[in-house]
């Protein structure tokens, strides 16, 4: 029996699936016979939390990619038999995205030094991310690499010879990266998916065993699934005793990661009994209003039935005036009984300036603001920064580049110095070739202050002893730094999260680089290089607690997709004039639309197609936001963004059109 729950966001589909799970358990089905696929690791955690106590026995709850990795690990000998070359050790190493990114960056740097990518005006890490993305997108859409390369060449052919050459450079590096990964059995994300899809999943015996192991499938948010995950789901629909799925017809927000909701409509819906679920918030005036905005965006004449959901418009020339009024309106709502946690400020992209400015204004009114954006830079976190900086100071063989501000912050934290003294010390360290000067050096004791001199002496001795060691293991060094230097400073929860992130990331990166580079000593401190170069490892997946009864600040996409964020009474859509509400998915060397099953030979990527896709995505975003809104929205606009760019995007015009009564 295949049952699909279909409904907009926040309509209760996940709850319905969880009830189906519990029904199966009540009917005597063992939990280890049920496979649950959730969209993200956050969703997996929530599923586990919900099912942990009522269900005894093993919970098989994973993301599709987590499941694939598990399967590859279990069945590796079968996969290994079909791979070229011989493997050095018995198990593969699965690369984290940070390690893959770093290794690709090294290839890109080498190519840049040889004069490659001559016409590409982008950073090394942006190019590296795009090359990795191309490979990932091809893998999840089951596009063979050679076909992927052909599509990229066709994108390059749309420009001049330099553009074609840049795409050729990209293809060369992707080939090299793949060869190196295969040879060393360091499995990045794209190779992991390809190996599973082409070797394991194509093996009938494996599939037989899969369906013997799991009798039931429960898959949530299938509108966000990639084609290869849909193939797995279809296999269960055809062979399992039962499958329960959740689908949002207006979802599919993560197309930049390969989500293919069209595949669900074409291939999965026909195999299921469909049960519609409604979202009580998203009915009547709310749905009509969202529909009107969508209509205007698509250039249709609309009959605006009601604008009741639009509770206010804050239109100002100056940004400060806009933010002041946003803060005033929030204050009014709270004073009239709305809880802070029932108000969300939605922005198109993460904006630290907005976060700081609005946070300060609300703090003056004794209202808390919590920013729930997906990433926060590791190096902005003082404890993480201190770990990386101290580790760089301890490297005896090579002088790693040190950032002055990082050094000031680190010395200030460890030695409890004021910024002036910390700055003076940082100057001395940098001018001594990244060595901590001796405390007895002229004038240093007086500069630091006698109270701090003893603490400094101990730090100096600590760093010196590590510098003198050969073969310092970075992972051990990080642990020592934390245990001996940072733990005594009474770290808070965020500090501990950051420290753990550094320890986990460095361990994973070390393993991956060790396998990929094979015994190269540089891998030891490559993690520091990786962080300082601002790669993905420099981002920290920091997830602040949502239920703090503070006003939420987040991006539109995170608000919709984050399962920890519930529907709120009021939303403030800030910077409605920003073009970032409707950004193109195309990048200089990557295009998720071209690298998907939507692409047909002979199609040309052009403005018309680009605009159509942008409007479609914005429409889905608007619907998704309204689905999590109980009472209404406010829009806010200023002439210039935080970065000083003019804000002349289409969303603001759509609201203007709405206020004029449609077209």
């Amino acid at each position, binding site marked *: 029996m295949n049952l699909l729950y279909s409904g907009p966001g926040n309509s209760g589909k996940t709850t319905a699936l969880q009830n189906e799970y519990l029904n199966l358990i009540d009917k005597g089905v063992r939990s280890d016979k049920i496979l649950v696929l959730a969209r993200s690791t956050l969703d997996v955690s929530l599923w586990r939390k919900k099912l942990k106590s009522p269900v005894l026995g093993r919970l098989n709850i994973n993301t599709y990619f987590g499941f694939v990795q598990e399967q590859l690990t279990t069945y590796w000998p079968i996969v290994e038999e079909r791979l070229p070359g011989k493997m050095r050790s018995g198990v593969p190493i699965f690369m984290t995205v940070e390690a893959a990114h770093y290794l690709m960056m090294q290839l890109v740097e080498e190519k840049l030094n040889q004069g490659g990518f001559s016409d*590409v005006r*982008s950073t090394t890490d942006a190019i590296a991310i795009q090359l990795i993305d191309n490979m990932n997108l091809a893998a999840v859409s089951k596009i063979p690499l050679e076909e992927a390369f052909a599509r990229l060449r066709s994108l390059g052919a749309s420009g001049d010879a330099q553009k074609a050459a840049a795409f050729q450079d990209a293809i060369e590096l992707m080939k090299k990266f793949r060869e190196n990964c295969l040879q060393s059995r360091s499995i990045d994300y794209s190779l992991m998916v390809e190996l599973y899809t082409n070797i394991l999943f194509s093996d009938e015996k494996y599939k037989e065993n899969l369906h013997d192991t799991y009798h039931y499938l429960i898959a949530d948010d299938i509108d966000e699934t990639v084609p290869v995950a849909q193939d797995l789901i279809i296999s269960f629909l055809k062979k399992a005793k039962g499958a329960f799925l959740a689908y949002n017809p207006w979802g599919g927000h993560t197309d930049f990661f390969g989500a293919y909701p069209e595949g669900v409509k074409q291939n999965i819906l026909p195999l299921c009994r469909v049960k519609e679920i409604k979202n009580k918030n998203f009915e009547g005036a709310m749905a009509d209003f969202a529909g009107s905005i969508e209509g205007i965006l698509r250039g249709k004449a609309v009959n605006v039935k009601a604008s009741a959901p639009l509770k206010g418009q804050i*239109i100002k020339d100056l940004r400060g005036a806009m933010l002041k009024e946003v803060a005033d309106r929030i204050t009014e709502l709270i004073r009239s009984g709305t809880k802070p946690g029932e108000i969300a400020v939605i922005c198109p992209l993460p904006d630290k300036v907005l976060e700081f400015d609005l946070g300060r204004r609300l703090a003056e009114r004794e209202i808390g603001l919590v920013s729930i954006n997906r990433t926060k830079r590791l190096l902005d976190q003082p404890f993480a920064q201190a770990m990386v900086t101290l580790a760089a100071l301890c490297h005896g063989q090579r002088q790693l580049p040190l950032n002055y501000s990082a050094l000031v912050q680190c010395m200030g934290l460890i030695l409890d110095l004021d910024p002036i003294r910390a700055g003076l010390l940082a100057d001395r360290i940098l001018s001594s070739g990244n060595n901590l000067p001796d405390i007895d050096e002229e004038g240093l004791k007086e500069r630091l202050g006698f109270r701090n001199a003893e603490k400094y002496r101990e730090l100096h001795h600590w760093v010196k002893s590590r510098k003198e060691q050969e073969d310092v293991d970075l992972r051990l060094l990080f642990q020592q730094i934390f245990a001996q230097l940072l733990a005594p400073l009474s770290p808070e929860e965020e500090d501990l999260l950051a420290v753990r992130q550094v320890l986990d990331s460095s361990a994973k990166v070390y393993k991956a680089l060790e396998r990929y580079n094979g015994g190269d000593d540089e891998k030891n401190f490559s993690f520091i290089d990786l962080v300082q170069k601002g790669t993905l490892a420099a981002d920290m997946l920091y997830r602040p607690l949502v239920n703090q009864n503070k006003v939420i600040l987040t991006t539109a996409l995170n608000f919709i997709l984050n399962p920890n964020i519930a529907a709120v009474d009021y939303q403030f859509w800030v910077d409605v004039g920003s073009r970032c509400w409707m950004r*193109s998915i*195309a990048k200089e*060397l990557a295009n998720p639309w071209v690298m998907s099953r939507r692409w047909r030979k002979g199609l040309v990527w052009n403005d018309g197609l680009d605009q159509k896709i942008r409007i479609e995505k914005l429409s889905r975003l608007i619907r998704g936001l309204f689905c999590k809104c109980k009472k209404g929205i406010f829009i806010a606009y200023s002439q210039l963004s935080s970065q000083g760019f003019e804000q*002349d995007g289409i969303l603001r015009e759509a609201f*203007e059109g709405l*206020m004029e009564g449609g*077209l």
Partner: protein
Amino acid sequence: MIKLRPDQREVAAYRGGQLAVPAVPGAGKTTVLAHLAADLIQEGLHRPGKILIVTVMNSAVSNFARRIGDFLKERGLPRTAGYEVKTLHSLAMGILKERPEFLMINQNFQVIDESTQRSLIGYLAR
């Protein structure tokens, strides 16, 4: 409501094609073009798009925008709807930001100011 001179009325009545208006400073070019823009917006002739006004200087942008806004307000219309006033540089920036990837430029590009430009050149010259 402003009273236009006969030669200005001729410009304000223009509805199609290309029109060049040579005039000395102070003749009222900005006023009449702002008036024309407001009329076009009132008549809905700009739809489904907007009217683009391009000037050379930032000060002219504010001036134009203010005048069109005033004319629109007189007509009971929103001050800022239906048009955009930009300098040539701003227009170029807007076009570039629309599809930077076409020129293989990263979407997070920044425009550097003169002092950054000078310091980069100085660094390269070393």
